[in-house]
């Protein structure tokens, strides 16, 4: 093993810089906008450079056949064992670092334009930078605890950012919701972590063989069993998966993600597309050895954890896609599609392994960030309008946005061959297909793909096609954008966004298109980079049995979805904003169900929230009647004592005390004579006292 390189030893710089920038920005006044933005972007840029550094170093290591390099150090000691933290550099870290810093950089730049009218500009950038730092921390952590801490900071910052316009009650509520729901998941995570520590005695991932997810520890974990023949490894993995599910909005913890759209759009892009939700997927990928741990007896079947992951992923994918069909808020559509894509990733992780999931994560990060930023650009252009029914005809109004958005949309749908989404999604489907126990997930995924294409087309036609439909109601309805441009200059119809917002879009678009070619079956560079198989360009990669079939079928699915979308929405342009959605006309009941997201929120409200309320009421009742009674009794007792005391007081103590007081006040009156605010008199006292003491001393001395 070569000595850990400089970049590995100083990997901490990458998250440290944005955090530092955040600290500095926090100290700035609101006037120093340029400085704040400059600090954030500059730090992000430096981190990006460092990330490139790390990536190239990783390439080097790979060429030497090294999978990961760590730098551990003792942090604190309890008992006689050290808790040590450390940085870890391995392929997925390198990739994620590159992705997060790059996308983050673009989003920062974008938000300079988007937030330009907000008076809390500096605060916004402070939070953004802090968020980015925490996220990067999650990536480089070589210690589950460190990862967890950064993870929690990520949660905190997402809370802050979602609730950025906290004057708006929806935003505040959404922020709270996001925080609490993710906490639920994190509880599982914490439990899993503690259990893991209890079992393996370390939280380091890699520690030269002694790490928690290295074969030795895994073996020990596998050796124990819990109920239902579930190995400890799987149990811990499932617990940790809870955390992942919470963060990346898997069913049933997905409810916070749509509401999180209350935050400013760049935040949505950064948190809900590129990074934070990816954190969950990343966590699973990171713990993959643990997840996939399986006792050798039944090595053929995948471990329980992986199955669960796959299923949850599939369900989520379908679920999100279904709901997305019936949404009208442009950002909500994207949010649900994010959920479904996250489901894909989980599915890919479960069925296909790290490489597959990560591949989709990366591509998705780019095109979803692109879509969100495009949506942001649209909203910005429509001066705060978010309802796609009140848009339309934007193709001519904002051509660049349109072009980039289309690219992103096609990528998301997975348009055959040309767009990155195709390759990554296709791999997932293929791996799901080629895995006999996950046939049903495969079909769910395929259907989700169809839906994806469908609802994206729908959105496209709604937003860009036809003529512009202004909202009948004024913008006051959109408290969300209380501080967006709408209030500052009267909306002069939709207009193209400033170039500071367009440049990131274009960049992202290019990536969204071409990133896919890093993982084609013909040239599986990414897979090899992650899993370390030799990479070579050969069309023989397509010759894997079933691959071509799956590819063709998925292409067919996508095309079907697109045409369906065109058939339903594109054939005749939506002219009237009040017109019902064609689907709604066709199947009102289903549509309503979907529109209300399967009433999951309502369901939670009806069950958990109510249960909580009931519990609260119950305890209140207890408090009033039971405990209070006890307290009453006690207080009675005390009162009795009190009376007795007071009796004693009045007759015994007081008299003596009064005497004492009289004496004191008398002497005080005497003293008050001395204390008459005349400096010189004081001086005299001092002098006299000095005389006394000196005389005393001398007297003693003479003795």
């Amino acid at each position: 093993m070569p000595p850990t390189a400089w970049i590995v030893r100083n990997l901490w710089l990458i998250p440290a810089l944005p955090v530092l920038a955040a600290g500095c920005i926090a100290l700035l006044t609101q006037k120093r906008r340029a400085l704040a933005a400059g600090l954030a972007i500059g730090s992000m840029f430096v981190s990006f450079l460092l990330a490139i550094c790390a990536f190239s170093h990783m390439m080097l290591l790979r060429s030497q056949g090294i999978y990961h390099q760590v730098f551990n150090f003792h942090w604190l000691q309890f008992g006689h064992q050290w808790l040590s933290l450390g940085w870890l550099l391995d392929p997925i870290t390198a990739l994620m670092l590159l992705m997060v810093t790059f996308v983050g950089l673009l989003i920062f730049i974008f938000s300079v334009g988007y937030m330009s009218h907000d008076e809390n500009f500096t605060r916004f950038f402070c939070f953004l930078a802090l968020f980015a730092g925490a996220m990067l921390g999650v990536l480089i952590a070589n210690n589950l605890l460190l990862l967890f801490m950064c993870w929690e900071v990520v949660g905190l910052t997402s809370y802050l950012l979602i609730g950025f316009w906290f004057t708006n009650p929806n935003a505040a509520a959404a922020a709270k919701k996001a925080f609490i729901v993710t906490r639920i998941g994190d509880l599982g995570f914490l439990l899993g972590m503690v259990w893991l520590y209890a079992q393996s005695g370390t939280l380091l991932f890699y520690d030269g063989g002694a790490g928690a997810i290295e074969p030795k520890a895994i073996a020990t974990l596998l050796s124990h069993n819990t109920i239902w023949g579930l190995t400890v490894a799987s149990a811990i993995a499932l617990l940790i998966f809870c955390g992942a599910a919470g963060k990346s909005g898997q069913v049933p913890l997905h409810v916070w993600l749509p509401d999180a759209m209350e935050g400013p759009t760049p935040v949505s892009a950064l948190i809900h597309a590129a990074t934070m939700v990816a954190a969950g997927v990343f966590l699973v990928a990171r713990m993959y050895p643990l997840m996939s741990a399986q006792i050798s007896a039944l090595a053929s079947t995948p471990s329980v954890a992986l199955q669960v992951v796959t299923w949850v992923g599939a369900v989520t994918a379908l679920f999100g896609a279904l709901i997305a069909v019936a949404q009208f808020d442009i950002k909500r559509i994207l949010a649900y599609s994010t959920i479904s894509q996250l489901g894909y990733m989980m599915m890919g992780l479960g069925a296909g392994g790290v490489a597959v999931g990560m591949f989709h994560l990366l591509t998705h990060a780019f095109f979803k960030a692109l879509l969100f930023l495009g949506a942001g650009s649209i909203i910005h252009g429509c001066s705060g309008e978010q309802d796609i029914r009140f848009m339309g005809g934007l193709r001519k109004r904002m051509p660049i946005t349109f072009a980039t958005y289309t690219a992103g949309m096609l990528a998301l749908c997975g348009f055959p061959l040309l767009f990155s989404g195709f390759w990554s999604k296709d791999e997932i489907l293929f791996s799901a297909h080629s895995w006999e126990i996950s046939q049903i997930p495969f079909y769910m995924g395929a259907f989700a793909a169809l839906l994806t294409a469908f609802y994206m087309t729908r959105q496209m036609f709604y937003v860009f096609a036809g003529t512009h439909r202004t909202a009948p109601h004024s913008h006051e309805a959109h408290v969300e954008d209380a501080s967006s441009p709408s209030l500052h200059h009267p909306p002069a119809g939709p207009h193209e966004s400033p170039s500071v917002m367009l440049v990131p879009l274009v960049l992202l678009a290019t990536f969204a298109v071409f990133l896919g070619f890093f993982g084609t079956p013909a040239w599986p560079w990414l897979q090899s980079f992650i899993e370390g198989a030799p990479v070579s360009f050969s069309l023989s990669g397509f010759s894997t049995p079933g691959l071509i079939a799956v590819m063709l079928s998925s292409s067919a699915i996508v095309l079907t979805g697109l045409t369906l979308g065109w058939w339903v929405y594109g054939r005749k342009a939506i002219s009237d904003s009040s017109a019902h959605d064609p689907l709604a006309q066709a199947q009102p009941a289903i549509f309503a169900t979907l529109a209300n997201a399967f009433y999951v929120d309502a369901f939670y409200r009806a069950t958990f929230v109510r249960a909580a309320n009931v519990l609260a009421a119950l305890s209140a009742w207890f408090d009033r009647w039971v405990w209070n009674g006890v307290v009453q009794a006690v207080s009675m007792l005390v009162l009795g004592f009190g009376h007795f005391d007071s009796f004693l007081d009045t007759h015994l103590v007081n008299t003596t005390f009064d005497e004492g007081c009289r004496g004191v006040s008398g002497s005080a009156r005497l003293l008050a004579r001395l204390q008459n605010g005349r400096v010189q008199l004081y001086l005299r006292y001092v002098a006299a006292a000095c005389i006394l003491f000196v005389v005393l001393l001398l007297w003693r001395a003479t003795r």
Partner: protein
Amino acid sequence: MTPLTSYLLLSAFLFSIGLAGALSRRSSIMVLIGIEIMLNAANLNFIAFWRFGPAPTALTGVMFTIFSIAVAAAEAAVGLSIILAVYRRTRSTDLEPTEAPHR
């Protein structure tokens, strides 16, 4: 009597002069002057002891005097400005009211 004794007596006398002034003058400025005089008497003591002390090379007395002179300068400046501020409010520098304070 040795010269040192005479110096000590002199400084003691100066000290008591200053004290008398500080104790019996009305104007706060004069009190300040008195305090300055006391400081100077102390300085004289230091110098005398340094001069006649066992180790004149130690310079301690001289140093102490120099520092106390510096401190005295600062004290005079601040004291006078305080007196000035007070004077600006109550148009007098007297330490005790002219008519007998009624209580």
